[in-house]
Structures are given as C-alpha cells and as structure tokens.
C-alpha cells in the first residue's frame, strides 16, 4: 500500500468513525426508548441509500480525465477540509461548543418519549429519526469516500475503510451499551480537517498543472505544515481571548497567561 493509499484509508476511517459516533448516539436513543427493530430498519435503509449514492456517483467521477478530476476533487476537499479545520480550531479555542454525546443522548431520548406512544409493531418515529441521523452523518462520509476514492481510483479501499470504522464504532457501542462520550471527537475532527486540506491542496495543485518538489513525498511536508499552522491558529485565538478577558477584568495579559499556564 502506497503512502497516498494509507493517507486515504486513514482519512476516511477517522472521518467515518467520528460521524458514526454521532449517528450511534441517535440510534441508541431511539432504540432504547422506542423500538430497536424500527431503529435498525432506519439504519439499514440509510446505509443502502448511502451505498447507492457512492455506487452511482463513483463511476461518473472516475470517468473524468485525471487532471480535471484532481482539480475538482482537490478543490472540493480543500473547501470541505478548511470548514472542518476552522470549526475544530474554534472548538479547541472555546469559541464553539464541543459535541457532547451524553447531552445529545438525553435530548434525543426526551424527544423520543415526548413523541407519543407507538400505535403498532412498526415505530415510524424510531425509523425516521434513525434514518435521518445516519443519512445526514453519512453524507459527509460518502462525500469523502467518493472524492478520495475516485481521485486514486480506489473507491473500494475508501469504502472498506469507512465500513471498518462503522464496525469499530458499533463494537465499541455494544461493549459500552452507552453513547461513546469519551471519544475525543474534536481531536479526530481536527485530524480529519488537516488530512482533507492537505490532500486537497496536493491534488488540486497537481490537477492545475503544478509539480510538487519530491512528488508524492511532498505530502510528508504538507501534512505536518498544515497541522502546525492549525495548532498555531488555535493557540493564537485562545491567547487573544485570554488577553481580552484579562483586559476586561483589569488584569495584565501576561499575568493572565501565567495564571493559565500554572492552572
């Protein structure tokens, strides 16, 4: 397996794992409070819909000329990846709320109980909520599977990495019998944002006709560089927030920084 293929598999696995954790919370909530069979039917229907999307769009993408494909995929991955990275930076700086699986689980179970009693064996509420939860979380994964996989003509490898991540999350959920609240979701999202942005930059520039120094090995410099830049931005935002808070409280910024470090 080449370095680019390992990057593909790792990016898809991480992206899929983090989205699967969020979908698992929804399915667990409606499954335990309403109906497991209806909730699992919703999961199955959404999985089929996602597989159909990948199967329909995959061949269309791989039929494009390689340079056009790389510019298209690179550009889309970059736009998508920069969104993930921006949100992860804001979360790590404390400017955006982190996803709390226990809170999400409580909200879903409260809504499921308030939705009224089931009228027959099949529970439409549990089916619909599960279907929607898995489909919405899965669409981002399908997008990543398609773009990463099509660009390297390895859609089956990308799909396998996504499937493996789903199995790992299901196994962890079954073992814990609870939402996976301890999974470091923002760290995973940060990592996925770095990978998407790095690969997007690499493929986009290649598709536009540029040649990277060192060829594929340039990724070994691009990925750490994007990671360091993102960490530096998160640190800068945190520091400016501390400085602004200290200024409002009438404490010198340096004193506030020392207090933060010692805490």
């Amino acid at each position, binding site marked *: 397996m080449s370095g680019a293929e390992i990057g593909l598999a790792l990016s898809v696995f991480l992206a899929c794992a983090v989205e699967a954790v969020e979908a698992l919370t929804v399915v667990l909530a409606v499954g335990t409070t309403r109906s497991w069979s209806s909730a699992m039917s919703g999961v199955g229907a959404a999985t089929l819909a996602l597989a159909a999307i990948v199967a329909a769009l995959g061949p269309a993408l791989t039929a494009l000329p390689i340079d056009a494909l790389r510019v298209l995929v690179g550009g889309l991955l970059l736009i998508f990846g920069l969104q993930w990275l921006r949100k992860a930076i804001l979360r790590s700086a404390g400017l955006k709320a982190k996803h709390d699986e226990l809170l999400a689980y409580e909200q879903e179970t409260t809504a499921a109980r308030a939705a009224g009693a089931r009228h027959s064996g099949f529970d439409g509420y549990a089916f619909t909520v599960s279907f929607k939860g898995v489909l919405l979380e899965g669409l981002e994964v399908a997008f990543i599977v398609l773009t990463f996989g099509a660009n390297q003509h390895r859609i089956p490898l990308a799909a396998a990495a996504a499937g493996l991540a789903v199995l790992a999350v299901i196994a962890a959920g079954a073992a814990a019998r609870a939402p996976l609240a301890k999974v470091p979701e923002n760290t995973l999202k940060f990592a996925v944002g770095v990978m998407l942005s790095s690969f997007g930059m690499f493929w986009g*520039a290649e598709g536009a006709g540029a040649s990277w120094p060192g060829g594929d090995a340039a990724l070994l410099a691009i990925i750490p560089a994007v990671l360091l830049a993102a960490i530096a931005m998160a640190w800068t935002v945190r520091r400016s927030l501390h400085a602004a808070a200290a200024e409002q409280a009438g404490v010198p910024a340096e004193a506030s920084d020392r207090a933060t470090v010692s805490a």
Partner: protein
Amino acid sequence: MRVKGYFTGAWEFVVGDDWRTALGVVLALALTALLAQAALSAWWVMPPAVVGLLALSVRRAARGASGRG
C-alpha cells in the same frame, strides 16, 4: 422549486457558511493553473494561500463569536 432546493442544499453542504474561503480556493487554483500554463513554477501558490484563507476564516468566525466584529 425543487431544483433550487437541491442547489441550495448542495451549496450549503459543500461551501457552508463561508463563501469567501471557497472563492479563495478557486482563485488560488486558477493562479496555479495560469503559472503552470506559462511553464513557471506553480506549486508554491497553494501552501500560503491555504494557510492565509484558513487564518482569515478563523479570524472572521472568532470576531463574530466573541462579538467584537
């Protein structure tokens, strides 16, 4: 109406709430293509463009979130 809804959904899904970053990516790729067409070195365009676009996007969002912008 349905076509417009799909287009809006696709736009929201891919571009999200920061169209400036998407536009910047397109412009950076276009500049890369122009330089490559002219047989000039073009790989160096994207790294500073990506870091700059991310920094501007984070700055806009941070200002909006902290109510200082």
